[in-house]
């Protein structure tokens, strides 16, 4: 009894993948375009990692209405606050996110500086670094204001002050103050404790990311994905043939965009972990493509003269089982994370799952048929300028 086991996918399938390529490409184009358009016009829900801001995970001991939490945060002046339930309802855990409101624009700074200059002997130009976004340095000569006077003057100009920090003067006889407006979490925490005292709010996690860091992380994340794609394409090109590269690139970009689609359409937070998922999908989904390309190459040597489309179809069908099973096994390992994961980890596994599926799909319907299209195109290009060569080729 040689085969007491079974094949999930029969080993002699003859599905016409190549024949479906036009439908598949159209579908994929629509899906990709939809994701891109959505991401551009609707935007991604950037987490604090990328958007900057403050995020707090607060657990209450009893039921609290998220709307009332939002109201109390909004009352503090954070109009863009978002409050969402985190994890199962029974845990009474909420995620409070406050975006950029606490950070000053250049107009705010100008207004503040004018207000302070009107009252106190400011020396030089107050120093403001847009990349920090929450701090103005004032330098005074003569009689400097007290920190409280300075705070009052700044708040009079409509900017919330967290701290006026007394710093050593630049030179003898001068005083410096740093006016800092960040640190909303303390304020929110205290406010929640007083408003919802009975529900015993507990801040379990706080993430604050400054705007400069957020921008930097966003750029770096984008670059990291591009670098990874580039390196993978080079590797596959070196190991196989650069003729395969366009197919690999298109499959990679396709899978990255579809994975991004999870974050775009679900509105789930896009953060550092999301970049990690996309990178992993990029690295992993190319595996299936490599398996199929490997087989195409092997079969090209074996069946010389066979029509390329048949060859590709044959190759995909031959390795259909393993392409499916490898993806299935990896997807299987994620099930536990999907069930028990909360927040970021749930998103990680869900997006990874979608990436794996997309990777398998793109191997079958995009990457492999792509080779035919490219070969045919190359053929036409060769043929078109020198038609006299065509008969010779055909005869071979």
């Amino acid at each position, binding site marked *: 009894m040689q085969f007491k086991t079974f094949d999930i996918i029969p080993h002699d399938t003859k599905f016409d993948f190549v024949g479906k390529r036009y439908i598949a490409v159209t579908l994929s184009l629509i899906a990709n375009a939809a994701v891109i358009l959505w991401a551009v016009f609707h935007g991604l829900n950037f987490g604090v990692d990328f958007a900057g801001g403050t995020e707090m995970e607060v657990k209450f001991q009893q039921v609290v209405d998220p709307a009332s939490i939002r109201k109390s945060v909004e009352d503090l002046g954070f109009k863009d606050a978002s409050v969402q339930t985190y994890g199962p309802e029974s845990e009474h855990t909420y995620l409070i996110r406050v975006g950029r409101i606490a950070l000053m624009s250049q107009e705010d700074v100008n207004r503040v500086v004018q207000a302070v200059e009107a009252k106190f002997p400011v020396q030089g130009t107050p120093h403001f670094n847009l990349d*920090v976004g929450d701090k103005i340095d004032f330098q005074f000569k003569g009689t400097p204001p007290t920190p409280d006077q300075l705070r009052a003057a700044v708040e009079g100009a409509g900017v919330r002050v967290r701290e006026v920090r007394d710093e*050593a003067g630049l030179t003898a006889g001068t005083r410096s103050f740093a006016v800092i407006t960040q640190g909303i979490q303390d304020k929110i925490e205290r406010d929640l404790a007083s408003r919802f005292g009975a529900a015993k709010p507990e801040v379990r*996690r706080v993430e604050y990311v*400054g705007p*400069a860091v957020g921008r930097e992380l966003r750029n770096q994340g984008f670059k990291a994905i591009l670098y990874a794609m580039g390196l993978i394409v080079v590797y596959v090109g070196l190991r196989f043939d650069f003729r395969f590269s366009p197919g690999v690139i298109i499959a990679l970009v396709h899978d990255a965009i579809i994975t991004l689609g999870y974050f775009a359409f679900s509105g789930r937070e896009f953060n550092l972990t999301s970049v990690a998922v996309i990178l992993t999908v990029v690295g992993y989904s*190319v595996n299936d493509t490599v398996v199929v390309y490997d087989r195409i190459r092997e079969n090209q040597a074996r069946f010389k003269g066979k029509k390329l489309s048949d060859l590709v179809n044959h190759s995909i069908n031959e390795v259909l089982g393993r392409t499916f099973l490898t993806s299935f096994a990896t997807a299987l390992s*994620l099930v536990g994370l999907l069930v028990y*994961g909360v927040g970021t980890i749930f998103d990680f596994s869900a997006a990874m799952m979608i990436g794996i599926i997309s990777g398998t799909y793109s191997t079958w319907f995009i990457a492999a048929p792509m080779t035919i299209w490219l070969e045919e195109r190359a053929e036409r290009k060769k043929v078109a300028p020198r038609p006299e060569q065509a008969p010779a080729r055909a005869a071979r």
Partner: protein
Amino acid sequence: MERNWYVRVALITGVLLFSVYQLVPSWFYFKLPPDQRNGQQYDQSVPSWAPSARKHLNLGLDLQGGIHLAMGVDVDRAVKAKVARRADEIADFLREKKIAVEASAPSPDGTRIAVKTSDPRRVESIVLDQYGNELSAPSGAPAGTVWFAFKGKVIQDFQAKAVDQAEKTIRNRVDKWGVSEPDIKRKGNNQIQIQLPGFKDPEKAKELLGRTAQLEFKITDDESPVLDAVRGEVPSCPVEQGVMRTPLPESGCWSIEGVELPGGQQRQVTFIAASTRSQLDAAIEKVAKPKLQPGQEIGIGEGTVGAGIVKERFYRTYLLHAKTELTGDYISDARASMDNSQGAGKPVVVFTMTPEGGRLMEKLTSNNLGRRMATVLDQKVETAPYIQGKISTNGQITLGSNRPYQQMFEEANEIALVLKAGALPAPVTIYEERTVGATLGPELIRKGTTAAFIGLILVVAFMILYYRATGLIADLALVLNGLLVLAIMAIIGSTLTLPGIAGFVLTLGMAVDANVLINERIREELRAGRNVRQAVDQGYDKVFWTIVDAHVTTLVAAVVLMQYGSGPVRGFAVTLAIGLVASMFTSIVVTRAFMDYFTRGDTTRLSV
């Protein structure tokens, strides 16, 4: 069996034993309750035959709680300060040379020094003679003015030094707290990343690390009687057997101390004391500030009551001349040392000034001989020793005597740290802060391990159901893979984060991918009519490069991610990378050794 096979089996057994051996410290580490893991308890629990107790699996901040901070050093402001200080020095220098100078001040943008003078040529040449290695005189200044600017290289050096100093200061402070296994490193050009696992007080960490350690020297104003007038407005401090007794009244209270004046006479100076900083601030605001004369200010210092181990701290005032005589960046080094000049060794603080600083210090000390010089760090008077002689580049601070030796030595260390910290002239700002409470970690660990376990069970069950015996072999390899990954992580001291657990699970799934590829190929070869031995050989040989390719592409992504991410995401990338490398070994070498064994006698049966 072939000899080659025995070599492979020996290798596999070796790897297995090695992995288990390397995980011994981690086993003892996680057996202890979380609060004892980083203490002596753990060190003692690790048996002596085990690897170094330091090499254990670590939990990331997200799992054990703690604080992650990225602090940016504001180097621009540091440069501004340097320019402004140099402008003052130049004015001083020219005055000494008896050259008429109207003004020497930084330009509005803070990059240049503008010296207004009737004789620009002479000023330019004389200043460049003195400071020519650091300054240049850019052209384009209006008539009657000379511009000086720091050379580009000087500025760069200075900025780099400012960040170095900030990092050093932060290290010093963190060391002082005794946080176990803190991680402090540079990130980018002017960022410092700090991880404090298990640290529970983010406010304290932010305040202490975010605080600018700017050190100034100011002269105390012990002659002025202005503070004597507060005696009518706050109560006197409670006294017991001649020493102050806590608790102090909430309104603050007054007390006196005997000081020496330059002429040698004694004076009783009044100061205000309170139990907390905010009480003292309130008292100063209310009773002391209105009485100050121009050029005076109040400094706040700390004092202690009682000589025993348990000392009560209180806060007290010093009356200071507001003028900052000297700043900390003129100090090049400071350390606690031993003064043996009076027989028995006595702890002292020795410090070295930069050449410029030495010149300024000499002037300062000779003008204020016999007065007290307050060392003010972040507006807090750390110590106020008497100036007993002229100091130039090398100085020494003698501590008040009649205290236990150990206590004095600690104090000397403390002051040395303050002086060193004072060399940090650039303010730092918090760029990024991530705090995880202690209660979150255990819950995440529970959920994470449950999720990992479910994933593992599903994968293992699938392999056995689908491939039977061959699947079981792959599963055994998978277990070894898991052990190997954890062992490598323990050896390189990488941390296990929540995304890291996800990465671990994912690599388990990817590890069996290789076996799926191999097994499917073997099935195919069997269908093509080969016997079992041939099919196994062909199966492994033909997919070898496919497996390598598949692993390398994912590894590329993991390595790129490692460069990019920090914290939990980096933990994911590291786990993924280690998992991929381990999986190549287990899925190819380990399973093959098993397969070769089971198919040794060219059987016709193979459940694959």
